[in-house]
């Protein structure tokens, strides 16, 4: 029961929180560009509209694949907040991402293919950082369970600053922010216009949007974990992290995929890997 409640709360409330976060994101982005911006509830209007557009799938596979994308992402988050093994969470998270890639590959559009390939590159770039983060969290707190890590009171951020910075870098990709919005962007100024969602519209796109809300809350939960020894501090850190991501989004042009991949792996190796090595070298437990 103790495990079920947070998992259920995530499954029910994450879309709500994620949607509000997306709305706040758009307003903050607009203010950074000296605009007024849309209403806070705009992402919900958008998703409601997409559902009302009915089915516009180009084949019978897209919708079920998008549905799996949503279900596995919700499962990953529920596992994470329910106190499941963080390594398992990362694997389920990756499976969820792969369903989106499969949905994009199922269409015949070359733009959809380019988007799907770029999404694979993003998964490839982000994976090592996530796995090293899990290993480092275990090294410091002795657990891979969200609640146990939070309860241990271990100040993860003090011992894992490198891992956290690396995670921040990778978060830019996963939140689909510039300069790493290679496969899909919320802005209209990209050369491969809507990348991975080129052929995904209507209710399929609505599912993908909701999944993205689930994903964002899960990732911010990971940020929370680094400051979990103090809940107010952790919430402030999560808010600041997201704000800095929005700032990066509005102040950076997109980079090429080669640079995105190589820079992420370099940073992962140097910052996160170095951090982990230093932990072992300096001993402790």
């Amino acid at each position, binding site marked *: 029961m103790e495990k079920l409640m947070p998992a259920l709360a995530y499954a029910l409330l994450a879309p709500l929180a994620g949607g509000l976060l997306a709305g706040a994101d*758009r307003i903050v982005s*607009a203010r950074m*560009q*000296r*605009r*007024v*911006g*849309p*209403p806070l509830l*705009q992402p919900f*209007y*958008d998703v*409601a*509209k997409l559902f*009302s*557009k*009915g089915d*516009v799938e180009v084949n019978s596979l897209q919708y079920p694949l998008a549905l799996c994308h949503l279900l596995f992402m919700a499962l990953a988050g529920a596992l994470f907040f329910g106190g499941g093994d963080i390594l398992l969470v990362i694997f389920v998270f990756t499976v969820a991402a792969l369903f989106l890639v499969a949905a994009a590959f199922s269409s015949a559009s070359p733009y959809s293919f380019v988007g799907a390939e770029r999404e694979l590159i993003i998964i490839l770039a982000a994976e090592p950082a996530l796995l090293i983060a899990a290993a480092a969290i275990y090294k410091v707190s002795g657990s891979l369970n969200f609640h146990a890590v939070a309860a241990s009171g271990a100040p993860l951020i003090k011992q894992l600053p490198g891992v956290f910075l690396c995670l921040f870098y990778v978060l830019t990709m996963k939140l689909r922010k510039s300069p790493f919005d290679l496969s899909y962007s919320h802005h*209209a100024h990209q050369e491969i*216009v*809507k990348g991975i*969602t*080129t*052929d*995904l*519209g*209507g209710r399929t*796109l609505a599912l993908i949007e909701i999944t993205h809300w689930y994903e964002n809350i899960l990732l911010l939960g990971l940020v929370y974990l680094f400051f979990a020894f103090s809940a107010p501090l952790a919430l402030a850190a999560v808010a600041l992290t997201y704000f800095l991501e929005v700032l990066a989004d509005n102040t950076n042009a997109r980079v090429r995929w080669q640079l995105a991949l190589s820079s992420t792996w370099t940073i992962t190796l140097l910052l996160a890997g170095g951090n982990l090595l230093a932990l072992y070298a300096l001993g402790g437990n």
Partner: protein
Amino acid sequence: MSLKKSPWLLHYDGSSCNGCDIEVLACLTPLYDAERFGVINTGNPRHADLLLLTGSINHQNEEVVRNLYAQMPEPKVVLAVGICATSGGVFADCYNVKGGADKVLPVDVYVPGCAARPEAIIDGIVRALGVLEQKRAAAEAKK
């Protein structure tokens, strides 16, 4: 209700001189900020509710325009922005020009002008939303 609050548009430049296109983009700038009404310039027909055409229709872009329109999910509306998209304008009699957008597509809203003012374009979009709602109501009534 939700259709009205989230108009995503696809902008296609037929054979415009770019005057109207600049004005369309001006709608998204801080001064006019069309995103206040939820407007997103998607660039992808499968995501679009509104097809915004500028410039006249000629023999080369006719197929492109038809193709874009066919890829948009129902319900959808077409806006002809600028006098060239409305009627062909001063180019109407050119040998290569077929005329306004209504030569190939069912245009719902005309926004004349050379170039069309951003205020007029936003007004056109808001009117198009009314048409969008009507189309949806008609589709539901058919069911």
